[in-house]
């Protein structure tokens, strides 16, 4: 390294000692910050496994619980229909994700690859919906659900979440970049546009597919205001709404270990999805094409 040092321009190689000191300082700061970021997660997990008696009677936080009180989770499942909430959340999120992604991909394929009259208008109409914040529509949507007799049904939880223009533009950008040759070949083989979309274009679109699926799944899993407004019977509650009602059921003393166990249960699925799809999510974000 020393021999060539006048040729390299990289700070770290030119001045190894100073470079590595900077590395250690910056790295140390970032690790410290990361621990701070993780502290709430650790508190959640630790409290969910702590002895409720310690927390409620001595009123102090527990960061290193021992022995582990797994029975908090048992109490949780016994006290509220958590399995039902979980099932509702899984059902709503998975269904929403599958259909939402498919509809976006279809529309995007039409806008990118097929030519039809009115195309520009359709595209403009999609683009304009990106400007409407969802909260603006919550009251009329509730009214619409009432008119359709969908209040307090799965329809209300799923159907309004199936459509979005953001995914259309994500897919359109991808399709625009796909080479035409494969589709030409399929066309000469006598495939119609749907078959080309389904058998050629879509299988080549894993990145936007994964990115959008993760985004829609997480959004649907975490959504709170809409399921809160549109359901009132216990059997239809999604996990966030169910847990919120558990919290409100405490009057004088809050059973923190129980609530933290519930929080942990609702965090685990998104963590799994995030762990599996992190690369796609980050790539989508880094490409600068994603916004909420």
């Amino acid at each position, binding site marked *: 390294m020393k021999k060539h040092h006048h040729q390299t*321009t990289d700070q770290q190689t030119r001045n190894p000692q100073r470079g590595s000191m*900077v*590395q250690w300082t910056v*790295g140390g700061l*970032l*690790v410290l910050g*990361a621990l701070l*970021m*993780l*502290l709430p997660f650790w*508190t*959640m997990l630790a409290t969910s496994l702590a002895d409720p008696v310690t*927390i409620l009677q001595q009123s*102090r*936080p527990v960061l290193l619980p021992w022995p582990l009180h797994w029975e908090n989770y048992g109490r949780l499942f016994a006290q509220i229909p958590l399995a039902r909430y979980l099932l509702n959340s899984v059902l709503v999120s998975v269904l929403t994700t599958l259909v939402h992604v498919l*509809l976006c991909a*279809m*529309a995007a*394929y*039409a806008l990118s690859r097929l*030519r*039809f*009259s009115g195309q520009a208008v359709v595209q403009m*109409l*999609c683009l304009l919906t*990106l400007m*409407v*914040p969802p*909260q*603006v*529509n919550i*009251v009329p*949507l509730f*009214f*619409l659900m009432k008119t359709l007799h969908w209040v307090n049904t799965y329809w209300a939880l799923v159907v309004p979440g*199936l*459509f*979005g223009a953001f995914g259309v533009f994500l897919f359109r950008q991808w399709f625009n970049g796909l080479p035409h040759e494969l589709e030409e070949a399929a066309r000469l083989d006598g495939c*119609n*546009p749907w078959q080309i979309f389904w058998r050629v274009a879509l299988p080549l679109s894993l990145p936007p597919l994964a990115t959008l699926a993760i985004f829609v799944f*997480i959004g649907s899993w*975490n959504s*709170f*205001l809409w399921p809160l407004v549109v359901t009132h019977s216990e059997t239809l509650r999604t996990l*966030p709404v169910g847990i*919120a009602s558990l*919290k409100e059921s405490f009057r004088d003393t*809050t059973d*923190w270990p129980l609530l933290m166990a519930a*929080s942990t249960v*609702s965090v685990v699925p*998104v*963590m799994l999805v*995030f762990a599996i799809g992190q690369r796609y999510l*980050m790539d989508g*974000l*880094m490409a*600068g094409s994603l*916004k*909420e």
Partner: protein
Amino acid sequence: MSRRNNTPKLVLSKHTPPYQRQEARWGWLLVLPCLAGLMLFTYIPTLMSFGLSFSYWNLLGSPHWVGVANYERLLRDPNFWAVLKTTAVFVLSVTGLEIVLGLLLAALLNRIRYGKLGLRAVYFLPFVTPMISVALVWGWLYDPQAGLLNVLLKTLGVLHQPVAWLYDTKTALASVVALEVWKTIGYNMVLFLAGMQAIPPQLYEAAELDGSSAWQTFWRVTLPLLTPTLFFVLMITLIHAIQSFDAVYLLTQGGPEQSTAVLVYWLYKNAFQFYRVGEASALAYLLFVMVLLLTLLQWRLRKRWVLYESDAPG
């Protein structure tokens, strides 16, 4: 680019070959489900919201026209002005903190060689976490008696009296802001990081040869070239912050003494607790106009940046 120039413009006529007719039919078929859904669940509600903002309706019976009465009542209502002020304080502090801290984190992360991906994931984690879990944990951290925050501050000798974070008008809003910043900072960081990585490395090499310090390089190279990203993130953060609801609903219910009642929470309360749908819709339109203006501004600026970006070397 060249591909698009090769495709002839579509003109349907008697002589149109069958595949093009088929194409037009399939085009509409594929786009229709999505378009119909957007019509039904976005366009119609947005128009209805506009109509409802000029109506009286208590969620029962049918709405009737009252003209601008809802807007008038809002303007006369001292609560509304208080909510507007709270929202402004909330949005500006959240945005300021998230921009500065996100930028700082990205700049630091961009400098290290090892562990970049792992650290990026950790900082991003809160962004994907459900707000219900976040709010419950933070509620527990903020607990006046047994919460970790008070216990830590007391052990460190910073505090002598426990602070009732979420139950004190002086600290409640700041406590919600802290939560919101923690939750979203990783998202901003990733966007900034993307912007930084798009800066041509030759510029850093040149700065390095000129003997520029890390601080100077950041101010004179990174930041100026990051302005497109900076404005984009600024707009996204503002739009996101204006729409906040969940944290306030779950942690403070707008209290104490309405010190945390932000716009969307107030909208929700008007609609679904006071059953004043007209006023809620007027609030909704106010929100819409604000977000619309920000979005249009962002698009305008973005157009300018595209030119600027294509002029940039590299």
